């Protein structure tokens, strides 16, 4: 096993733990993107460039866009509910 492969394995281990340990969803999305890059590196140094190519787009663009859109929708709904609650007593 080469040094690069060991580094990749360590990065994936640390990255995965970091994703789980991050509590706030918005931050978690960004950490997830970094974890995806670590995975891409892992696939590349373990001679799976095909998988690395898919992983880099899916993890750095594909998943974050969907998660961020969902988070924004939740915030919009919370915002709307707060406004309604403020108006209600009057």
């Amino acid at each position, binding site marked *: 096993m080469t040094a690069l492969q060991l580094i990749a394995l360590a990065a994936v281990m640390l990255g995965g733990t970091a994703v789980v340990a991050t509590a706030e969803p918005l931050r978690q999305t960004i950490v997830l993107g970094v974890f995806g890059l670590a995975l891409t590196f892992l696939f590349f140094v373990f001679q799976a460039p095909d998988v690395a190519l898919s992983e880099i787009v899916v993890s750095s663009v594909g998943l974050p866009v969907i998660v961020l*859109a969902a988070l924004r929708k939740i915030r919009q709904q919370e915002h709307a509910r707060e406004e309604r609650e403020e108006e209600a007593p009057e």
Partner: protein
Amino acid sequence: MSRRLRLGVFAVAGAGIAVVLLLGFTGLPSFGHAHELYGSLVNRTADKLRHATDLVTALNFDIRAFDTLGEEFILFASVTGVTLLLRTLRGEEERERQTPGIEEHAFAGASDGLKLASLVLIPVLVAFGAYLVFHGQLTPGGGFQGGVVLAAGPIAILLAGRYLSMKVVAPKVLLEAGDSLGAACYALIGLGGLIFVGVYLKNPLPLGSPGHLLSGGMMPLNSIAVGLEVAGAFLLTWTEFLDQTMIGPPSG
């Protein structure tokens, strides 16, 4: 369920998984020494029998093309599900039209640096995606990888803060057409095998010389079909999700 109980359940399940994994790992061949029969056979024969220099693509689009057909339609079905769930209802359409300042959607405040970076990224992504789709049988990559890279191109327009321009470049009708056309083409190429050589998804085309752009028989065609479908499917999913939030009153 209390925190204590949850931790207890996790401890039992975690220990069980750890034992099973350890048992499994001890039976693995040592690192770098796994030479399975199937892999060795493909490595030794695929370049001569299929005239492809990227054996992963040879597997995906020729030797086990039928598996890819299944994967194609898994993607197709899931994207259809997403579009169905997130479709615009009659009442929502009205609200959308009445919303003031729809041109200035919530993500319009991109900095100049981000806009420039996105502008540079768009042609690079499109060129690289097209390269991956067309060179599937020669170099690592192929329809799926090229498709996702191509799909990231229009997303760069979103990064520049121009979601509505992105929708002009990649309107939903076009994405739906690409998604379905790609899936249909793949199935029809398979039918070509059935008609001309008698086996579904068997290569009916001349193999060409290895290392050339037009080699590997039906592999480039399958690659293009898959690229079209994947690019359409990914962009359609993103557009559906973004439509839920991007269009509407801007909120903090």
